[in-house]
């Protein structure tokens, strides 16, 4: 049986401080080597949302429309620009989901500055992924359980917890959040993933609610696929985590 593989979490941007590359062609070559069919790509580290979203659309999606799925970002530091940029990103650039990174912005995920953004996404059924962390990499801004009231308030959208809380203490809270809210999903990439982390997430949240992600180019998609395929979950669960779940969440399974 063939397995569609969708990488839910990749970034563009040169990232000089970690010496990574930013070449769409090389992304595709690594995706091919890893067995990844398509990747969600964002440019959330850009200081200007509109320019970052343009990079996603023009450098990645337009060059490789069958390989990249565009992800928008907006920043709560410029609330007057957020909604117009969302309208442009989804209606003109045809980006498909939204990523926010409260740690990078320095504003917690439940800061009221995000609420208009959440309402906009909720009105349209847009999937939103946010960094989440607690434990070794705790920043206090994205504790997984802080997503519960948001997901319970904004129920017409999917909430994806990037990194599934990062580390076992955060993973436990991420599972708790997923169990509390059927619209919360857990994404797998992390620098803090013990042996059997994937088994833990699937057993806790269910095999329909876990999404493979790599964090490319910080982490190589080959290694992150390896984390899924060498886990102890069933082959059917592996297929769901690697891609079948993402197709549903992104509405690409029609």
């Amino acid at each position, binding site marked *: 049986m*063939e*397995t*569609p*593989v969708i990488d839910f979490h990749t970034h563009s941007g040169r990232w000089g*401080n*970690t*010496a*990574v*590359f930013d070449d769409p062609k*090389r992304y595709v070559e*690594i995706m*091919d*080597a*890893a*067995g*990844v*069919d398509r990747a969600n790509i964002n440019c959330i580290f850009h200081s200007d949302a509109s320019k970052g979203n343009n990079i996603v659309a023009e450098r990645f999606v337009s060059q490789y429309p069958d390989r990249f799925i565009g992800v928008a970002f907006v920043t709560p530091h410029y609330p007057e620009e957020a909604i117009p940029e969302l309208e442009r990103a989804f209606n003109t650039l045809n980006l498909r989901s939204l990523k926010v990174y409260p740690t990078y912005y320095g504003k917690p995920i439940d800061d009221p500055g995000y609420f208009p953004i959440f309402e906009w996404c909720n009105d349209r059924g847009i999937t939103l992924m946010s960094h989440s962390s607690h434990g070794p990499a705790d920043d206090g801004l994205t504790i997984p359980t802080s997503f519960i009231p948001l997901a319970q308030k904004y129920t017409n959208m999917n909430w994806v917890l990037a990194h599934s809380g990062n580390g*076992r203490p955060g993973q436990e809270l991420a599972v708790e959040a997923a169990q509390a809210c059927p619209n919360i999903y857990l994404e797998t990439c992390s*620098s803090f*993933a*013990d*042996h*059997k*982390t*994937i088994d833990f997430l699937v057993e806790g949240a269910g095999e329909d609610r876990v999404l493979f992600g790599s964090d*490319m*180019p*910080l*982490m*190589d*998609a*080959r*290694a*992150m*696929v*390896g*984390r899924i*395929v*060498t*886990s*102890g979950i069933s*082959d059917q669960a*592996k*297929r769901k985590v*690697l*891609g079948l779940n993402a197709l549903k969440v992104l509405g690409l399974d029609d």
Partner: protein
Amino acid sequence: MGNVDLNFKSAVPTFDANVALGRRHDRRVVVSTTEGLIEAMDGSGIERAVVYSPYAAHFDTVEGNEQLLDMIKGQPRLVPQLVANPAVEDLDTFAAQVESLGVRSIRFHPDEHKYPLRDWVVGSWLEWMESEGIPLWIPVAETDPVTLHDIAAGHPGLSIVLTETHYSQVPWAIPFLKSVSNTSVEVSRWVIADGVQRLMGAIGAERILFGSRFPDSSMGNQLYNLHRNDLSDNNLAAICAGNLDRLLGLE
């Protein structure tokens, strides 16, 4: 459509260079028994592993090393690595233990054990290791690159293995490895995109060691990455086992 191997196992003999075995004081680890470790190794197709005691690394080297040796007694697939605290231990006593046990590698944790990695603390230990051909493992987060470079350059006959090098250390790690040729890198946390190829371009296959950092990481993720990097059969075999065998004198 998704060219993935859902039931991947290593295709070459594989020797893991970085495994912790035993309980930790600060949390419950997923696998802390010899049986659990062997089961995980079998799951990823790993034949052998260098193992050390996390208790020795975090608190008590003497008791931790003894616990480790007791846990792996009669298990030839597990190769013991002793943790040393050169700031407080007697070198002659430690050296006698190493010799009597046939231990082939030693691990320092300067940050955990609260000493500077300087010759006025560790020099006599490093000279002994150089003379005996015993390599040194150091988690890179436990020292700074300038100090580590001074030590490596000042002891050119000592083989040093940088363990758990993370993407945040990439900006200095590549120049470091190119600068001091008596160093190798264990790649459990070296999962930055194209990291294997970048290492290959900088230092070649001979100084790259497969390691997992089990149980703080799964054994399979970096192994899968190595198998998907267009490495020649010889280079894959060297990285997965041959280089470590050579370093430990087990060829």
